[in-house]
């Protein structure tokens, strides 16, 4: 391309000709904004005291953009923007439907809460290690994963968030953190590599990476080894989501980093595995998912019940929260396995609830540590008399996590139980209820021991100091708790949105049409 060409070329053969509107730009803005903010913070590495002033407004902007995007797709249907103007299926597509926008918005809220809590929790040395740049890049990876419409691009965003999560995990480089990070890194890299292998296999079968294109072709293709492919994808995403046989990395690593980092991870990372399962297995390979639904259901029950027992067995609160994260994953898997509209929307709703509730749970545990000076149940106590307001908020959160009314955990659980009873899988419904019961016992015991029990004599010296400080963590926890209560009391809006998301997954017509307006451009 040495000089401006004077030849007349029909650009419409290769290029998108319509200029993109504001709605299309909303699709790409979340990751672009987060990368820009991350880059800016990397350049300001000597002014760590100013990091918060850039990071928090950027996260607020992310929430607003995602909210606008959700409003746009829930009223007008999925939106697509083609990178570099190339026509689908050749260009990389960013396609957002209600599911993607919903997950992106709720993740952004959790990210904002963690960012606010980090302002006091992450010290200057943690900031010099790059907490805020890593947070921005993690959010870029998370938003990109939810918004992309290209399966290889999904892999790239997985890598982005994985690399940032490594950075966050070893913030401070303590010995215990390196130990946890090693397990996390090795197992996650195996999972990501499996994902990459599956994508390569998929490309060999379909010759395309665009998800809308794959969705079209998978329904027509004959004699392709789609069963193997789906099983590979399920294994890869189950590792990411921490489903039962491949979940040992999570309890081994999530208790090691700073509590704000744990909150981010517990809220966001595993849910991306669930999102990928929903997107790839449910939307792209419906026939194979039906075949594999029994396997998924067994995995779901084992994940739920064993992590419920895991919660009971823990003395360290952070490890208990790790098992609570896995318990939620089991519930979402149950929804995916039921293969019905109600089950899928229950899974989506549970994912939204879990992002908020798990982030809040870890932040609450951080406050418990600040108040009692200990992470363990055996040593703590007396919070109720020290901070009754905080105790009330914690109780609300515990009830929400356990799935009791009137909080956000209730509605998805009802839908999941109904879906499993509808298809006659009483054992799946029993698994959901038993795991909820186990979680209730574990969290009830936490409240009993850490909050109601009078403080032990030895801990009395710690109590005086940290009560007043850390208003910002309180703001973050209260914000999340308010969302959880609102979600529990007025479930109509999230319910109808999650139903819309599930409809879009079961029948990807409108998703495909947003990429190929003419109904297939092969």
């Amino acid at each position, binding site marked *: *391309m040495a000089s401006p060409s004077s030849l007349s070329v029909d650009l419409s053969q290769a290029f998108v000709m319509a200029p993109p509107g504001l709605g299309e730009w909303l699709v790409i803005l979340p990751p672009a904004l987060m990368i*820009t903010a991350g*880059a800016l913070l990397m350049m300001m590495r000597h002014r760590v005291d100013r990091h918060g002033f850039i990071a928090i407004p950027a996260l607020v902007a992310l929430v607003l953009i995602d909210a606008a995007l959700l409003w746009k797709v829930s009223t007008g249907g999925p939106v697509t923007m083609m990178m570099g103007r190339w026509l689908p299926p050749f260009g990389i597509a960013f396609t957002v439907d209600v599911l993607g926008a919903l997950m992106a918005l709720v993740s952004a809220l959790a990210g904002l809460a963690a960012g606010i809590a980090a302002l006091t929790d992450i010290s200057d040395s943690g900031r010099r290690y790059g907490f805020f740049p890593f947070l921005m890049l993690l959010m870029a990876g998370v938003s990109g994963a939810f918004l992309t419409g290209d399966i290889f691009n999904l892999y790239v965003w997985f890598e982005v968030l994985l690399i940032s999560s490594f950075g966050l995990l070893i913030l401070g480089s303590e010995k215990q953190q390196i130990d946890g990070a090693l397990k996390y890194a090795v197992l996650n890299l195996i999972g990501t590599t499996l994902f990459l292998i599956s994508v390569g296999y998929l490309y060999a079968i379909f010759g395309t990476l665009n998800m809308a294109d794959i969705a079209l072709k998978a329904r027509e293709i004959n004699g392709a080894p789609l069963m193997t492919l789906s099983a590979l994808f399920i294994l890869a995403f189950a590792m990411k989501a921490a489903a039962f046989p491949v979940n040992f990395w999570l309890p081994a690593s999530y208790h090691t980093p700073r509590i704000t980092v744990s909150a981010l991870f517990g809220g966001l990372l595993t849910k991306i595995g669930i999102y990928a399962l929903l997107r790839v297995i449910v939307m792209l390979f419906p026939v194979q998912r039906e075949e594999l639904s029994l396997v998924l259901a067994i995995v779901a029950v084992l994940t739920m019940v064993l992590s419920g027992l895991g919660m009971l067995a823990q003395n360290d609160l952070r490890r208990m929260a790790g098992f609570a994260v896995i318990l939620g994953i089991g519930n979402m898997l149950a929804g995916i396995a039921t293969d019905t509209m109600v089950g899928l929307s229950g899974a989506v709703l549970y994912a939204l609830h879990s992002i908020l509730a798990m982030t809040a749970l870890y932040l609450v545990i951080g406050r418990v540590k600040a108040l009692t000076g200990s992470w363990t149940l055996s040593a703590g106590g007396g919070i109720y008399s020290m901070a009754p307001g905080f105790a009330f908020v914690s109780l609300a959160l515990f009830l929400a996590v356990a799935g009791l009314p009137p909080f956000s955990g209730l509605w998805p659980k009802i839908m999941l139980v109904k879906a499993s009873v509808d298809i006659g899988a009483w054992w799946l419904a029993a698994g959901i209820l038993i795991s909820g019961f186990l979680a209730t016992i574990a969290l009830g015991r936490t409240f009993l021991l850490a909050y109601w029990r009078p403080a032990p004599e030895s801990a009395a010296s710690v109590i005086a100091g940290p009560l007043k400080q850390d208003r910002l963590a309180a703001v973050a926890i209260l914000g999340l708790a308010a969302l959880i209560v609102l979600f529990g009391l007025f479930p109509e809006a999230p319910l109808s949105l999650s139903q819309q998301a599930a409809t879009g997954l079961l029948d990807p017509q409108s998703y495909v049409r947003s990429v190929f307006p003419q109904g297939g451009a092969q």
Partner: protein
Amino acid sequence: MNTLIFRTVAPFLTALMIVFSIFVLLRGHNEPGGGFIGGLIAASAFAIYGIAYGVAAVRRALWFHPLSIAGAGLMLSVVSGLISAFAGVPFMTGLWIYPKLFGVEVPLATVISFDIGVYLVVVGSITSIALALEEKDDA
């Protein structure tokens, strides 16, 4: 390393490699090459300089912290993509201008600025890793 031969050759080698890395970066538009491989060559140049004269000398010579360089590159790449918003075309669309510099027409594109961004990201991040590893060796 303290051999006389290496210490004498290292500055020339470094300068040569950096020039070559820029050549590879610019060549990459239409032929094999590009920002990533160019960045790797430049990062190896800094690593060689570091082996010969120590990490402190490289940090002085670079002036900016390697991670700041990487951040600037990342910013440049994203901004190259966002420029297309003002031209009414989707993100990351290549846009060209053809200014005349000293009577020669020079085609410039957001594609090139994107690739320069990639170059800076690779230089910055790989150099910072290499320097950290060499620093550990010194201590």
